[in-house]
């Protein structure tokens, strides 16, 4: 049985193993450029070479991938071509990762560490992480970048666009490893002078029922917080949503509504708003994540160590705020 199961597709698999990187690059370039000629220019081949590569690829996979255009209309991919293209992009990204990994093994440190993060981390952790890291690893060029949603961070890790990312748990991705950094409690941010702002101590979740809410559009924790409130029978009304922490807080200050935000995303010095802990709410867990298949570079390990230190200090700040 074990042999028989492998047999019917044995020949097909051999054909697929005949695929070469340049065939895949030709398909990707045509999809991207819209014509054989421009694809050839982009890859530095003559046009007939691109046509041959596509014809070869079509023979190997056994289906048409490209609708040949007449006249000057741009070429388009067949549905099979579109489907294959999705895989081709993954394969080329995996190739690039393999190549970078080998380069780093042959040269020692690559000298570059690309780290991604959410806005709140960029505001509250990065200013402390960067100088400390630079002190310890002066030869490493850190390239930070910010994303509004941590699902984008996860995508970027997987495709090799980032070496490390500060994310919220859970990651739901078994290609990634992570290390927990910080429990970041949820606060209620209310307009100064509003009833929600006037109490002392934590806000009782029941106080949020039917309250107008300014939501973060791409924060995964937003939905988790709303789901948690729903289990208590509490339903705030989302009246506005924004991607920018500062916008959300400005809308709260303008008395448009309240917001639920993690401690790190709140500017506590803002005179227009008051932040109080949300009683009983599950904190978001911040972690630093990386692709498991990557050989951990010493520089990445050092950055993680710095992140742990900064997180421990922030945990002290959170405790002092009384949210914890």
């Amino acid at each position, binding site marked *: 049985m074990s042999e028989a199961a492998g047999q019917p597709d*044995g020949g097909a698999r051999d054909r697929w193993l005949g695929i070469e990187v340049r065939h895949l690059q030709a398909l990707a370039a045509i999809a991207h450029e819209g014509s054989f000629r421009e694809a050839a220019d982009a890859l530095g081949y003559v046009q007939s070479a691109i046509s041959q590569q596509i014809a070869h690829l079509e023979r190997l996979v056994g289906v048409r991938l490209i609708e040949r255009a007449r006249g000057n209309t741009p070429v388009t991919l067949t549905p099979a071509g579109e489907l294959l293209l999705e*895989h081709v992009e993954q394969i080329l990204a995996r190739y690039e990762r*393999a190549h970078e990994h080998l380069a780093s093994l042959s040269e020692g440190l690559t000298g570059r560490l690309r780290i991604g993060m959410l806005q709140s981390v960029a505001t509250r952790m990065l200013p402390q992480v960067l100088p400390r890291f630079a002190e310890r690893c002066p030869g490493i060029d850190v390239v930070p970048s910010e994303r509004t949603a941590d699902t984008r961070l996860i995508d970027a890790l997987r495709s090799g666009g980032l070496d490390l990312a500060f994310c919220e748990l859970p990651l739901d991705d078994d290609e990634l490893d992570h290390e927990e950094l910080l429990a970041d409690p949820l606060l209620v941010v209310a307009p100064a002078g509003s009833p929600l702002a006037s109490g002392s101590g934590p806000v009782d979740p029941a106080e949020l029922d039917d309250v107008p809410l300014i939501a973060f559009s791409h924060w995964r924790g937003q939905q988790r917080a709303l789901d948690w409130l729903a289990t208590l029978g509490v339903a705030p009304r989302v009246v506005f949503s924004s991607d920018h922490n500062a916008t959300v807080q400005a809308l709260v200050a303008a008395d448009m509504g309240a917001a639920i935000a993690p401690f790190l995303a709140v500017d506590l010095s803002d005179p227009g708003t008051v932040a109080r802990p949300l009683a009983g709410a599950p904190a978001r867990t911040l972690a630093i994540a990386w692709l498991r298949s990557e050989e951990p570079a010493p520089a990445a390990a050092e950055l993680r160590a710095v992140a742990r230190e900064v997180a421990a200090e922030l945990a002290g700040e959170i405790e002092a705020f009384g949210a914890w």
Partner: protein
Amino acid sequence: MVGLGGRSAGAPVVGRLGGFEPRHLAALVAVGETGTFRTAGERLGYVQSAVSQQIAQLERSVGMPLIERAAGQPAVTLTEAGAALAEHAAGILAQLDAAAADLRAMPAGGTAQLRLGVHDRTVMRVLPQAIDLLGARAPDVRLVVRDSQAPPHVRACDVRRGVLDAALEDLPLEPGPFASVELFHDPIVLAVPRAWPLAARAQLGRLDELASVPLVADTSWPMLALVESQLRAAGVEPRFAVRSPLSGSVQALVAAGIGAALLPALAVDDRDRDVAVVGLGDLLAPRRIALYWHAHRRRLRPVEQLADALAAAFDDLAAPPARAAS
């Protein structure tokens, strides 16, 4: 876009590496897994010299040794760089397999074919209902069920290669590029010859009651080791009347009075008048049935629809309650 596909200017990085093609990577993975050029060649269907040539090309193109050859020994091991590349290579080849499987599963004439591997005839109890549900919700998907007695790793290979689009299996799964959804907890019960006094019991309260019961066990059942270790952890040394690769005949031996058998509830044919089922509550961990598929596949809508249909069918199937003999 991050991948090379998005580069529109300059020579692509990978293109400069001549001998860095999927077939070279397949050779590296095969050598790493089998440990000699000869066995790697057998697996790939090449002669030994072709394998060593491909490895040599790969080493030239990456500029580093990937394999360590001990003098006078056929066995080879991967260097650090070789092991690192082999891991990337496995990911690239898995993505290529997923691409082949996706193209093969593409709807022809509006009908998508979904090939499901079934691990065990016991799930046939839910399949008719799942097929009905799937037919109602996704009429353009044609389900093809392949029932086999093959061990789990064979189905795992078929799912990886796209011979199957999904398969039902008991957890834990074989390692591989798989995603899964857990569908059902199937409790372990004791199937007892009807003539035994024990058959009058609805349920056992303690595992040590099993210490004196002669058991029939199928050694080809993947969960057997787990069941035995749970018994031993409870201080019960199982007494086996028969312990051999039996597959289908366990229940026949129970019916013949040879011994009792620990089985997943769904595996017991409850129409059998010579066998009674005695419940064990949750004294033993249940078998967990899951649907799994290749995680790199892109068109998974039919698989998701199948998972929903199976989940609904399993939900409707109340685990057969332990019954006292009438």
